[in-house]
């Protein structure tokens, strides 16, 4: 995978989107439209945003995640944020960031468990 692109993979009824480690503003802008278009195209009911590679989450990125979660919800889908690194969780909390209505899990496996157990989507 190119180190600086978003990867979007359809898994049954959900989308797995992996964010690169140092996402620039262009990637973050792209995230929203790419995700929403893919949800429409594949008729996905859920989104896993894998941020396990991400080593910086600032207010701009957090706002985009929060807004995207809301937009996905308007399209009838649930978002799960997977794999936030400890140092990113510490910094995001100290900075005062919040991710809106997204559910968080430790990793992608647990996100898949949520979709299979709670939403019967996988």
């Amino acid at each position, binding site marked *: 995978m190119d180190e600086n692109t978003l990867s979007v993979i359809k898994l049954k009824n959900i989308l797995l989107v992996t964010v690169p480690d140092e996402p*620039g503003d262009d990637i973050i802008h792209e995230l929203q439209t790419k995700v929403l278009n893919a949800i429409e195209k594949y008729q996905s009911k859920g989104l896993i945003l894998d941020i396990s590679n991400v080593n*910086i989450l600032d207010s701009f990125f957090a706002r985009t995640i929060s807004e995207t979660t809301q937009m996905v919800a308007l399209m009838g889908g649930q978002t799960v944020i997977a794999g936030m690194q400890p140092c990113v969780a510490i910094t995001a909390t100290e900075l*005062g*960031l919040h991710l809106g209505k997204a559910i968080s899990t430790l990793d992608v496996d647990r996100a898949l468990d949520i979709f299979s157990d709670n939403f019967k989507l996988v």
Partner: protein
Amino acid sequence: MTNESGENPIQTEGDIVTCRKLIRNVTSAAGFGMTDVTRIVTAVSELARNVYVHSGSEGVMRWQILDKPGQIGIQLEFEDFGVGIPDINQAVEAGFTTAGSMGMGLSGVKRLMDSMTIKSDVDMGTTVSITKWGRAK
């Protein structure tokens, strides 16, 4: 590690990432721990974006590694030549924003750092200085 310093222009959106990468390398090499590196790089991202969004095209980031016995530190300065901040106290309040963001920028950066000072003249520009100390390895 003494007397290390440098600067980087903030003129394009891409410069925000360049500044982040530069300071990630500088602070890691200086011996800051992983969490402090993340705090500092996140502060850089917030302040570099402020400079880019509010000042047009002539911003700059300056950095300097500091040291005193048993400690490592970094001081960073973000200067723009934009419209300036009329009310600095208001700008540092959580939730204040003129740019449609979460408004966590300056108040959040202050919490991530050990100190933050802002100098601003309306129509002349703004300089935000931040300092972070860590234990030397």
